[in-house]
């Protein structure tokens, strides 16, 4: 069972991620992509707008 013996590339967290539905995976990827650029900033009001836009784009 791959879930029990994750290889270095197939970490447990990656397997957990793969278990999520496609729509959720895409949303997570999009959010993480946005967060990378601004995660260290104190003021980042735009991030909420961007997350909402991604949720609306991906979930029709």
């Amino acid at each position, binding site marked *: 069972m791959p879930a029990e013996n994750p290889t270095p590339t197939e*970490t447990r967290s990656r397997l957990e991620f793969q278990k999520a539905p496609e729509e959720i995976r895409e*949303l997570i990827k999009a959010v993480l992509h946005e967060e990378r650029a601004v995660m*260290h900033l104190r003021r980042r009001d735009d991030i909420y707008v961007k997350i909402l836009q991604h*949720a609306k784009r991906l979930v029709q």
Partner: protein
Amino acid sequence: MILERITIENFRQFRGKQEIFFATIPTRNVTLIHAENGFGKTALLNALLWGFYGHEGLTEDLPRKESIIHEGTAARSRTPATTSAKVTIWFTHDGEKYRLERELTLEQQQLDAKKTDVVLELNKDGMPIAERHPQQRIQALMPFGISGFLFFNGERIDHLAMEENAPLITDAIRQMLGLKLLQTAIDDLRHQSVLGKLRNELRERTSAEKQAKIDEQTRVDDDITEWGKRKDTNQKNIQATDAELASVNSKLEMNREAHHLQLRRASLEKQEQGLIERLTTATKRLGQIVAEDSYALFAGDLVKRGREIVDKLRSEGKIPARVLNSFLKELLDGHRCICKRHLDDGSVERKAVEELMHYAGDQQFNNAVGALDNALGRIEEGAEHTRRTLQETNAERLKINDDLKAVREELAEIHHKLGGKADEEVHKLEDTREKLALKQRELLAEQVKIDLKLEELQKRREELRKEIKDITDSEADAQKAQRRLTAVEEAAATLQHILDIETAELRPILNEEIDQHFRKIIGIGYWAELSDDFKLKIMKRLDVSDAASDTARSLNMEVALSQGQRQVTSLVFIASLVALARRRSEIGTIIKGLTGSEYPMVMDSPFGQLSQFRPGVARWIPKLAPQVIIFVSSTQYEGDVAKELKDSSRIGKRYYLTYHGPEIHPDAKRELKIARSPVTVYFEERRDEYTEICELET
């Protein structure tokens, strides 16, 4: 990141332009800065932090944060637009060379000292290229969240090794090892501006029934926020009280009259804690046995009756059956016996076979009685096992209770002894300690109450989430709004799960580092570990003999930590994080692009409360990180520390701070024996107060 050089101009007590070239060669990676108390160690640490993060970076213990520019210089200035404080730092990060400059003019300081000018230049083939968003870039190179673990006052890090600070440890791991991205994403997905908006969109389109549920969920969320704030406040109060208690304990430990009793008390308190944990486990186990297996004990009568029935059937020869009625029925239905005789209706032969039916047994009945017999045997065995386990567990619980009682009696006795001491200092300290301990108990009880309330609210929120999701909307746009809300909630939940997995997976790797570092300092018999619930502990193995069974066994015991031990443990923890950050790319993670990064460790007074661990830490400190910068006073340096650091041959650069002012700190020396001939470090100066940085030959 490796720091190469810093220049400080008119920053706090540094008048004019001062500079330090840091040791950068891996084999001579230690920069040692000698500074007496009150000479500017804290200001120097803050110069570095201000350079990187501005006002936000200044440490909590720095007084008058709005006054950045050297006071004398500011007072004499007639050109506030050009008088300024400036810190310039040259550093390398992942092979790139940078120059960072932060400046605050007097004019700006008078308006708002928090607003500074910052320039960050990347040196590309000899050409300086200014970063467009310097602060953002600095945060990416060395996030502010990790600065507290890289630039710190050694005497104030012991809080990491306090039991209740497990959340700080978890946060430190996430900050230093790049998992903060996941936490930030989770927080933002769950933010009112995202989840709240989607919920409102659904509310506007859905049925009245669902609207009511959404409204309740909003109220529950508000309550969770409110209780969360209470928890934070309570947590801070616990930390503050704990720090006060630690300080009182340390004073008692240092007092000759109270020394031994205080040490004994620390050990007993740790024992008490261990016993309470064991008692909780034993009580839980007892409850579990009663809930799951106690039926066997109460089934005694039924088992007895069952046995009587089986025995009776056996004695009557009904089990096992000599002949089966299904077999006889087959013969009768076939009108033919196995001896080939015809079994015609009314015949003597048929009658004889029909007679046998009275003695014959049923196959199913036979099987059922067999199964009953088997089950009775199992219940009897189970009852015996349950009875024995219950007795043993209960005996263990009683024994723990007795031990606990003995420990508590001895603790009370110590309190009475110390409280009754003629020494006024001990008497007062004991009094303060008692009040603080009482306050701490109340705060901890409050914490339990808050946690229970939060658990209840979170459970309700989850129930409501499901209930809302399960109410099917008739309108298409309401259905869509529901799907979007669910997607965001599930994305946050998935990320939370991933973050928990990654943090948990880092724990054993970190534990290896911690243990490896810790053994080098403390020696044989002790080890440090990060427990399953992220508490930093020092353990020791204790061999105990069991008189009853005449055997010996080993017990792993947690050691009561003195302030010095907590400081060592915290230092080891930070060093282990820095070491792991360096080889981050070797450790599996879901986050793309996490590379290993080198970081310096800048420590103000790391030898402060270490007592007997000083030589071990001094020997090992150069190996802590790729670059180590230490600020040290003469009282901490002279003796073991000086010898160990000298023997390590790792000191690449040495500086000392000279203080020019009207008065010298009572602990400070005017001359230091840090070179071949004594070095004067204090100069009386009545008009102006300032500190200078001077280099020493290594």
